[in-house]
């Protein structure tokens, strides 16, 4: 199941803060889709260290969309693959 977070109109450090909080809040099978104006390099490192996987693709409404899921959650991974295939 998808959780959508639009941080495209927020000032640093709010996008990073909210993205991390939303990632920590993910339940089993859930993934986070972050709508962002910029590619958030600092976020990636922290996500990696906190046990999350991520994938960034060009967005439709915003320049970037970042998909985030728990590395230990194969169901969420499948949901991300499915969303990206569409």
């Amino acid at each position, binding site marked *: 199941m998808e959780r959508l977070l639009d941080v495209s*109109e*927020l*000032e*640093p*450090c*709010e996008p*990073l*803060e909210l993205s*991390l909080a939303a990632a*920590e809040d993910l339940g089993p099978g859930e993934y986070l889709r972050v709508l962002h*104006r*910029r*590619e958030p*390099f*600092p976020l*990636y*490192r*922290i996500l990696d*260290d*906190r046990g999350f996987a991520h994938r960034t693709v060009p967005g439709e409404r915003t*320049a970037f969309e970042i998909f985030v899921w728990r590395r230990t959650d194969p169901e969420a991974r499948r949901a991300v693959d499915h969303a990206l295939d569409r």
Partner: protein
Amino acid sequence: MIPGGGDLRFDRMPPLWVPLRAFVAAPLLGAAGGVTLSAVGPAAFAQRWAPGLIAAAHLVTVGFLTLVMVGAILQVLPVVTGVPVPGTRRVGPITQLGVALGAVALAAGVGGTLPELSGVGAVLLGVGLGVFTVAALTGAWQARRNPTGRAMGLSVASLVAVAGLGVFLLAGHAGWLTLRRDLTDVHLAWALAGWVGLLVMGVSFQVVPMFQVTPTYPKVVERFLPALGFAGLIVWTAGRLGAGPVLATTGILTVVAVFGAYAVTTLRLQSRRRRKLPDPTTDAWRLGMGSLLVAVSMVAASTMGALDLAATAPALVFGVLAVFGFGVSVIEGMLYKIVPFLSWLHLQNVITSRDLVGRVKIRNMRQLLPPPRGHFTAHAAALGMLLVAVVLRGFWVRLAGLAVAVDFGWLALILIGVVRRHREDRRSIMASVG
């Protein structure tokens, strides 16, 4: 270095105090520039070659602008492009020490206090900036696919020309070589338009949309303006050094058009901010872009024969606008955001590495550095007083120098406050570990 992405490793990064040390030391050197101007007084504004003016100007341009810009490249390149500058842990301290001590030696040497220090300044700046340019050009080459990486590369290439000519001129001041004053304008142009201008341009492609929440720069601006500005400088230099006045005019008008277009684009983007909350960073950048527009207009007028930029008063107004109005304004505005951002990011990494996610609360950026509206007002006042001092001279020069010292001294205190709050939060994180 701070966490950026890709192959960056937190354990390979220098401690946060490496960049912060430079960011805090830089305003103190700028303040020394203000004190120098105040101490020398009207003689500093008597002509553009006045030793007191050259000393004060270099404390600001090398001691403040270059020290911050070097730190910004080392710290910001990884964050905005995901590419680290190789050897940052060693390059950072060597460069910072060379630039900071070199700026002081240069000022004492050319200012006439201790002329023998000109040579020491040349060596310190030559070594510090030499090490830096090799590392930064390597990093910028790896980040060349990114517009900011490319502009940073051109800016650092300009620094090679600035530093090379600067060290050559210093050797002239030291009496080791003949002093070629005719090369001063070439040194000045590459310093202001190449090193400062192109770096600000490249960094702004990232930090203006990011921190001021504006739309992104048009692709054509990101892709072509820095390269066109760099090409214009080369053409102007070739013309100036003997290839002929037509080339020189073509080159300088290209540079004027590039920076004029850049300033107008930035002001237009700022007028389309998505959240129009009052923000000292945005105000500082507006002041910077306004100053840049007036400065490039003066160069255009001079090229067309409508203004004599070699005359003392216009030359001083141009210098004040280009260095203090443009360079210092945008870099102070950038520091308002970058220092709390780096501090906050560092604390996030400490929390993650100690496995304390969700168990401790830290300050956010605005709590680490509340919007410094008062400081921006002091900066704008200092700029105004410098311009008044060019016209009225006399005691006004001393007052303007004092205002510059207050501006930079206040900035140092603000940044030290961020460091103090960062330490408090770090201590509370460590206390949670037990």
